[in-house]
């Protein structure tokens, strides 16, 4: 390794080294129903990622339940769309 940290578990299996991409979670948004943006300088420190987990029931929305469109630029995550019903997770790896 060059510089950094290496971590093994109790069985001697390598968990982390300097080539590992470890994901960190920067936040969770649970009550958003329309577009929003998040500014966080930690987006500069890795590759941004997000999840959207729909919170569901066996019924259909009217108007249609929307799906989010997510983009990253610099230190900002921008979510567009409307009528969301779910949870957003975002972070970097």
């Amino acid at each position: 390794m060059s510089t950094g940290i290496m971590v093994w578990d109790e069985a001697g299996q390598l968990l982390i080294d300097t080539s590992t991409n470890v994901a960190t979670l920067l936040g969770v948004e649970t009550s958003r129903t329309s577009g929003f943006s998040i500014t966080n300088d930690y987006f500069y420190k890795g590759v941004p990622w997000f999840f959207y987990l729909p919170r569901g029931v066996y019924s259909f929305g009217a108007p249609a339940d929307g799906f989010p469109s997510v983009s990253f630029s610099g230190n900002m995550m921008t979510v567009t769309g409307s009528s969301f019903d779910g949870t957003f997770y975002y972070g970097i790896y």
Partner: protein
Amino acid sequence: MGVGLECYNDAGHLQFSTQTILPALVAKGVHDATLNSGSSNTPGWHSTRLDIGGLSESAFICIRPNDGASYAFFYVERVGGTVQYHFFTNGSGSFTWWAFDRIASITGNTGIILFDGAGQVCWQISARPLRVSGVVQQAISSGAIGDQGFGIPGGRDVAVAVGCMAGWENYVQIGTPDGQPQRYSARYRLDTIRSDGGQYVFALQVVDQSSGFTTNPEQASYSRLFGARNVMIVDVTNY
């Protein structure tokens, strides 16, 4: 950062920090795809529900199919202290799941532990972190999304983080099953994962309701959309 500790990899990407949340492995299990089966109205497919207790709102799971069946994540809901993950599958085997969540408490009394400014544990050296092996992404447009594969790295065990797969559901006109026009039936288009040799294959599957219909033209315009295919592949080797 102000005070604290951060560690970066060779690419200059953050590995862990006292300023962020480190998702760590908190639970693991095998789910029998015939458990909590709830739908007999979708030929070739049935629903199955995985219940996990004790997870925070920061938690999410990864799965690895243990057979050649296809699995589609459908939705999630929290019932009391239990998180219920709903899937569709066309098989009767099983999948292995791993749950990642923020570290809630210290385990053991040796090693290195990092705390954030609020005194919360944010990293422990013995924690199994969420190691990213790759991502599979594709924009979704109504009616079309292609298959994609992800080659499993040799010697590694990888799983798919659910909750970031494409899909939608709506009503479609089904002709005149009772001799009358304007009959509609539910149709699910769900992004599925299956294990195929040395790779995972992601494919959108169409699952139609087999019986029953609505005559409500307004309801026929209802729909539910999940989003683009945006799948994280997680390295769970030795987890």
